[in-house]
């Protein structure tokens, strides 16, 4: 191999220090195949070497948690012998280079993580972030990513039921593409990625191995630059049809009870799946690369071990059941080949025929990876940005115009253009569709429903990572609660810049502190997730983006609650309090051009009271709708309640002493808009009081217009006028 430094490890992204460690582990110099294997396994993407000490601070246990971090996906109990497996993963760098395939294979990878656990995937979500749509490149990436997600999810037949899309200049060169998958399984079918039982066969199943995606995991752990385009070959190509066959075959196989362990070949392909399975099982694996079905001739062991060809799995079945495994895969037209065996020496031994080409202690690639305690330092300018005085800003001249402008901000506007491209109904479980606080899917054969969401406002995290982290978790939980679901657990996707920079690491640590604290308070343990660092272009990091995926349980699907106003003359109340907080708001950046101040405060005690009260109100059937106030504030949330049900509202805010911009557009947390029949009003007020929760009347559901009257302003618009701006914004920009 060529290299300019005379140090092949440096070319592969390893440091001198790490190279010395490898020599110690092997007690000799590694050969090139071994070096390649170390380089991918010790990449941040596979090893979490920069994040592990911080991730350890997350709460991961709870009565509902059946499987926490460390497996392919987290698993939480939903009763009746059933469980939910779920996980989120990033595919940011591949999507920056090749948006369609990058996003598609992100979806494919996360689906494999879920069915590997023995769960049938029933829903997909995604969290996407791009630069502003005025840029042609952002439009290209946005279009390509959405098409890629649609192309994969629609074909495989798993509904894409929810998600979020933000637009901000910091994502211009480095979009964020996080995909989340959720599956249902019976407890007895829970499968793990463990190689145990010495003498058991090791089988490669699914697609053939090609030269695509070699060292993709390492590519994911570097900053993007001008040369990144040349790494297009590091992006894999997805085949959803192949994955559909693989999924059906694997689920059929798990039902036989013959599976000892199973692991997806995702990042770092055969290398990661084999060493992780052996490492978790406390065993070794010996396999012959010459036996691995290949797509092309002349592949050497290095390429085979490091290929990230998609739609492949490593399976350890019980000895003697090889034929049964093969007959299932044959039925689906897939390869299932015995390539090795489980051994008792703890060594991952790779052979090519009789020749040993790599011999590494399995744990050397996994647990023994170096862990770095990075330096953390608050960014110098942040204190100044936080202190920005927002109290003396001029008020908008025309609130109605500002309101309409806010509704057409791509971050706030309807995402119908996106989700109409996704099949969100296949599987006939989707009870609450995209565009709501959270999606809800029913669990057939039971009365239960699962509520799903993925959330993060990265501007809040940028302004104050600790508070922003708390808000991301709290808002996700609040979204679930608005449907009547009790939040169960979290999967998080940390998308940050280069952790070797103290300012970035500080953001990460602080955000993690906020996430951990909120997860503890709301009893939503972190069951897994993914860390994506190095989201930088030309040295500039994206906004710190710790997206929080959350699942919740609805005991009785008939009681599911939605955001839309439902009956004329219902009374509209606000649970929680308005307050003067413009910091971090979409309004502030749109109208004043400021990304400054402190993000809205979050009091976890108040949040808990709000969520508990709302859940009870829904359970007792006292409210007809519930909707969280988020980006765009109270006015935008009211508009969403109106549009979703095609019903107008008369809102009276004359009693408020807040300045109108804060009242209408401020993004104060812990607020939920509900609508209530006149008969239930007293009971609802009593329930709020018993939770020491503020409740105030906003107005009534009425007509086909939204009218908001305040001390010094009036907004009076027909729903048609509002809808034109809200739904028209993104299609209009995408035509440009």
């Amino acid at each position: 191999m060529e290299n300019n430094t005379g140090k092949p490890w440096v070319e592969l992204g390893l440091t001198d220090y790490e190279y010395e460690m490898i020599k110690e582990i092997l007690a000799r110099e590694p050969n090139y195949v071994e070096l390649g294997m170390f380089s991918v396994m010790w990449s941040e993407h596979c090893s979490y070497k920069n994040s592990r000490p911080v991730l350890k601070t997350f709460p991961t246990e709870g009565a509902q948690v059946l499987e926490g971090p460390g497996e392919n996906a987290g698993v939480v109990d939903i009763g009746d012998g059933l469980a939910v497996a779920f996980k989120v993963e990033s595919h940011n760098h591949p999507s920056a280079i090749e948006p369609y395939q990058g996003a598609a294979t992100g979806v494919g990878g996360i689906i494999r993580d879920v069915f590997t656990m023995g769960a049938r995937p029933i829903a997909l979500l995604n969290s996407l972030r791009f630069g502003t749509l005025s840029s042609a490149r952002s439009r290209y990436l946005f279009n390509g990513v959405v098409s890629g997600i649609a192309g994969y999810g629609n074909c495989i037949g798993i509904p894409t039921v929810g998600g979020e899309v933000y637009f901000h200049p910091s994502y211009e060169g480095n979009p964020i593409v996080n995909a989340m998958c959720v599956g249902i399984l019976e407890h007895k079918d829970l499968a793990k990625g463990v190689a145990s039982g010495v003498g058991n066969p090791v089988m490669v199943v699914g697609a053939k191995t090609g030269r695509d995606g070699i060292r993709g995991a390492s590519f994911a752990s570097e900053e993007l630059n001008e040369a990144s385009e040349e790494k297009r070959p590091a992006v894999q190509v997805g085949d959803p049809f192949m994955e559909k066959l693989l999924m059906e075959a694997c689920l059929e196989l798990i039902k036989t009870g013959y599976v000892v362990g199973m692991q997806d070949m995702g990042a770092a392909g055969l290398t990661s799946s084999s060493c992780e399975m052996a490492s978790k099982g406390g065993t070794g694996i010996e396999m012959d690369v010459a036996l691995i079905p290949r797509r092309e001739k002349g592949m050497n062991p290095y390429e085979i071990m490091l290929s990230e060809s998609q739609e492949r799995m490593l399976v350890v079945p019980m000895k003697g059941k090889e034929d049964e495994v093969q007959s299932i895969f044959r039925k689906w037209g897939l390869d299932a080949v015995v390539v090795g065996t489980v051994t008792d020496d703890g060594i991952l031994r790779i052979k090519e025929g009789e020749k040993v080409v790599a011999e590494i202690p399995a744990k050397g690639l996994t647990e023994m990876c170096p862990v770095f305690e990075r330096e953390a330092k608050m960014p110098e300018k942040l204190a100044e940005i936080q202190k920005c005085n927002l109290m003396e800003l001029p008020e908008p001249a025309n609130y109605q115009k500002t309101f309409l402008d806010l509704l057409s901000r791509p971050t706030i506007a309807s995402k119908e253009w996106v989700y109409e491209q996704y099949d969100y109904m296949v599987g006939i479980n989707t009870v609450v569709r995209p565009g709501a606080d959270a999606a809800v899917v029913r669990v057939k054969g039971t009365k239960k429903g699962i509520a799903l969401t993925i959330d993060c406002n990265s501007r809040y995290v940028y302004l104050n990572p600790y508070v922003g982290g708390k808000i991301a978790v709290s808002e996700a939980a609040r979204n679930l609660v608005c449907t009547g679901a009790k939040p169960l657990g979290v999967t998080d996707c940390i998308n940050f810049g280069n952790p070797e920079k103290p300012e970035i690491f500080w953001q990460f640590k602080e955000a993690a502190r906020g996430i951990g604290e909120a997860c503890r308070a709301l009893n939503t343990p972190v069951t897994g997730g993914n860390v994506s660092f190095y989201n930088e272009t030309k040295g500039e990091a994206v906004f710190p983006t710790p997206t929080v995926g959350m699942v919740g349980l609805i005991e009785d699907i008939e009681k599911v609650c939605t955001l839309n106003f439902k009956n004329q003359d219902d009374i509209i109340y606000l649970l929680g309090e308005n307050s003067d907080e413009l910091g971090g708001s979409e309004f502030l950046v749109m109208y004043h051009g400021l990304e400054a101040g402190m993000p809205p405060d979050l009091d976890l005690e108040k949040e808990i009271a709000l969520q508990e009260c709302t859940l009870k109100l829904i359970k007792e059937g006292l409210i007809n709708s519930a909707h969280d106030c988020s980006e765009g504030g109270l006015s935008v949330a009211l508009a969403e309640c109106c549009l979703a049900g095609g019903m107008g509202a008369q809102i009276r805010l004359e009693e408020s002493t807040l300045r109108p911009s804060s009242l209408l557009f401020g993004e104060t947390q812990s607020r939920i808009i509900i609508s209530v029949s006149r008969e239930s009003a007293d009971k609802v007020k009593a329930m709020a009081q018993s939770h020491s929760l503020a409740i105030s009347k906003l107005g009534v559901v009425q007509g086909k217009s939204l009218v908001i009257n305040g001390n010094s302003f009036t907004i009076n618009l027909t729903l048609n006028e509002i809808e034109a701006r809200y739904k028209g914004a993104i299609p209009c920009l995408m035509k440009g």
Partner: protein
Amino acid sequence: MKFAVIVFPGSNCDADCYHVVKEVIGQDADYVWHQDETFKTQYDCIVLPGGFSYGDYLRTGSIAKFSPIMNEVIKFANQGGLVLGICNGFQILTEAGLLPGALVRNKGLKFVCKDTFLKVENNETPFTLDYTQDQVIQVPVAHGEGAYVCDENTLEKLKANKQIVFRYSTSAGETFPECNFNGSSDNIAGIINKKGNVLGMMPHPERCAETILGNDLGKHVFTSIVSWLKGGGRNGE
């Protein structure tokens, strides 16, 4: 009554159709694997479900027609058996020559998933008996290649023989061009063969067969089949 739901590699609405037949309208159903060369039992109705058979990589439905089971399906249809093709199933039926015309890329070139309104143009078929003539039903679509096209001559025949069963419309039943989101000829959403026993439709009635999913009017495509079969089939072919 006994339904067969054909499973091609890549079918993904097979379980949905099976669920509606079994759990919603309470009839018997079997999955039938595409490699089977014969039906192992007597069926009253064959369902070709939606999905991406063989990945739809060459052209939608074009590979599925070569599956061994399709010979049986064609034989069954030619003998007057009821065949319902939904979405990819419709595409397969046109590829297999059981229905005229073809399904091509949506006019917007994008996959579209949403609710549509359909006007029942002919309620005298085995699949629409339980609807009233001109009834408007709300049924979801989810397809990238669902624009129905055929030559002028075929279109005239479809009209003359009342073979157009569903058309995209407004909620009031007006078949305006604006409702024709995918660019189908004459707002066509579903057609039946001349003999009246093979129906293909792009919208998914199985997705709106239970109130919890929004509305349950789609189930009448399935209940109609049962009503028809109980009535002993159509006379005077």
